[in-house]
């Protein structure tokens, strides 16, 4: 769909939505939000971009194929679950650092876990949507 208006709007909306997605991700522990919704919003941002500018330019924008987000995110989540095992605790025990960061709050394995979720969700949503829209059956 080539519409100058949509194209321009989406170019400005993309960073906005991404920002929003990260915001939703980080505040999930305190207010509604979290990795899922954050990831979904981020992927919506890219989908929108793709609607306006075509798939190729979105792919170029992403630099990496969307599929690459999946194992990365999975690995982050898995490792954040495994990390406590090295400290002699069961899988997925929460470990918190005592540094307090605004919005994000405490740094801890659950946060990294959520970040992993975030990436996986972006990866899968984009993989699915891009695959479908670029394949002409």
């Amino acid at each position: 769909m080539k519409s100058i208006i949509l194209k321009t709007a989406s170019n400005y909306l993309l960073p906005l939505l991404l920002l929003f997605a990260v915001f939703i991700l980080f505040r999930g522990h305190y207010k509604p939000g979290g990795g899922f919704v954050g990831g979904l919003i981020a992927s919506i941002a890219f989908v929108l971009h793709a609607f306006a500018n075509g798939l190729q330019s979105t792919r170029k924008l992403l630099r990496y194929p969307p599929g690459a987000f999946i194992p990365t995110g999975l690995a982050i989540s898995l490792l954040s679950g495994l990390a406590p095992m090295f400290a002699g605790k069961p899988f997925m025990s929460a470990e918190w650092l005592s540094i307090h960061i605004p919005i994000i709050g405490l740094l801890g394995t659950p946060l990294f876990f959520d970040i992993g979720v975030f990436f996986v969700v972006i990866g899968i949503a984009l993989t699915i949507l891009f695959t479908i829209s670029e394949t002409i059956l």
Partner: protein
Amino acid sequence: MLTLIWVMLTGELVVVNFAFGFILSYVILWIVGEEDDSKRYFTRVPAIISFIFFFIYEMLKANLHVAYDVITPRFFMKPGIVKYPLDARTNLEITFFTNLISLTPGTLILDVSDDKKVVYIHVMYLEDKDAFIQQIKGGLEKRLLDILR
């Protein structure tokens, strides 16, 4: 700009937050690629504010007009699609312009031609085509371009 929105979103006016917002914005901008004209926003704040008030005034006026028509049983409409030659040239200008047109009741952008010369506007109360075009040209488009250029 993004930093500002971040702070708006989070609603915490703390220095650390600004810093974090800045870093984050930087990262996102790096991700989405170069944004050459993003810096210029800040210089035009006063113009923007006056424009906003102008726009709200226009919008309220038009809204009342339409509202009256909607709730009264008979329609006074004379709708039509008008070709409107653009002065705005850049994508940003066009987008701003069209969005504002659309936000004003009674007018709606249907499309921009591929060579960006004209827009097609659906107008609800089209008494006189040329008068309508002149009204927009002198009011909204001029003020908008003043801000953006």
